[in-house]
């Protein structure tokens, strides 16, 4: 059974006790480059449907995640189980404001909503416009470091900025989330992976094509 109480506890406590790699250090060399080029990797969701699985400390949950850009350019993210029962419906406005339209009562906890909001915001890259990231080199990779709340969202590319290798969310002291978007087709990733480092909390999305998919 999906034990939400354990999940709430872990979401709250992971930021205090988890052991994960330190974020890119201020001591790493600053890089010079066109920081705006990272926006070429922002996904262009018109409408995409994903078969989704969530693993949290031994609990497994599956369903369908719909990501849809609305006429006002806001993005809606709806998660439902395979039989149609909705888990949540979130909205990210064009300016990045977050709104919960509905959420299953058992999931309706501040820590859960905040974690999911941060995870999706890392992927959507929709609140980065107007921000100038800090660029740093490390291990041959270019880190585009954006301030995000109390932490940072980092977009890691090869040194020539031709490929987005990985995304990560960090606190001041450590990396808390790693994420990848793979195999883009018309600006939409085919696979998405989100992995929390403090405890087992993994989200995997695999795109599926239904009757509503415009290709």
């Amino acid at each position, binding site marked *: 059974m999906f034990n939400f109480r354990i999940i709430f506890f872990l979401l709250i406590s992971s930021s205090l006790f988890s052991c994960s790699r330190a974020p890119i250090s201020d001591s790493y060399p600053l890089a010079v480059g066109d920081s705006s080029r990272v926006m070429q990797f922002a996904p262009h969701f018109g409408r995409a449907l994903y*078969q989704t*699985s969530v693993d949290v400390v031994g609990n497994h949950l*599956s369903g*369908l995640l719909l990501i849809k850009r609305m006429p006002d350019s806001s993005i809606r993210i709806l998660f439902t189980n395979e039989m*149609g*029962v909705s888990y949540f419906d979130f909205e990210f406005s064009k300016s990045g404001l977050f709104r919960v339209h509905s959420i299953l*009562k058992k999931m309706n906890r501040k820590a859960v909503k905040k974690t999911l909001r941060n995870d999706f915001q890392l992927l959507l890259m929709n609140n980065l416009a107007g921000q100038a990231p800090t660029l740093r080199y490390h291990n041959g990779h270019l880190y585009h470091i954006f301030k995000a709340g109390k932490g940072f969202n980092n977009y890691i590319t090869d040194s020539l900025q031709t490929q987005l290798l990985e995304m990560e969310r960090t606190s001041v002291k450590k990396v808390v989330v790693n994420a990848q978007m793979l195999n883009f087709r018309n600006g939409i990733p085919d696979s998405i992976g989100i992995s929390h480092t403090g405890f087992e909390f993994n989200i*995997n999305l695999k795109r599926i094509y*239904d009757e*509503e998919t415009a290709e």
Partner: protein
Amino acid sequence: MANAQYNGYSAMVNDAAFKSNFSIATQKVSTIKSDFTQEKELSLLADKISSKGKFWFKKNNQVRMEYTSPYQYLMVINKDRVFVKDRQKESKINTRSNKMFQQINRVMIDCMQGTVFSNPDFSTRLFENKSAVLIEMTPLTKGLKEMFSHIILVVEKKDFSVVSIRMNEASGDYTTIRFINKEQNVQLPDNLFSVN
């Protein structure tokens, strides 16, 4: 929708006669084999998620739903145990310890077994037209109310078989499962419903 009336249907005058006939008819059905289509209508998003698959029912309390397109997903209900297989994992769930699954399980079984009227978790109202009866089920328990505002079951008059199940959510979204190519009382092997 919590319509006092449904388009094309009028309130049934003789509920008792229908309930009795429905009960008698469904008692004679030991198995059902069917294809199904499922559509989740998202009113605010002006969108729809469609899928289809195969459905099997066997008395007592055994259901197998196999989604085949556009995704693969298998759910087998065998009394109070549920087996689920998605893209990544197989899971066994004891519905006694998972109330949400227990409630959905009961709804599905009641719809097929014709025991909707004895489920204390719902109140019912009946409507009819020339060929079908519409059973409006309103949840009475907190857990079900959170998931559904109503469940609408449409039953064919000619053989009392289920045409569709529509699950309405409070948000205005709804999911409709339609059963097509139905066959009753065909031989179904027990291993279709194995959860081991």
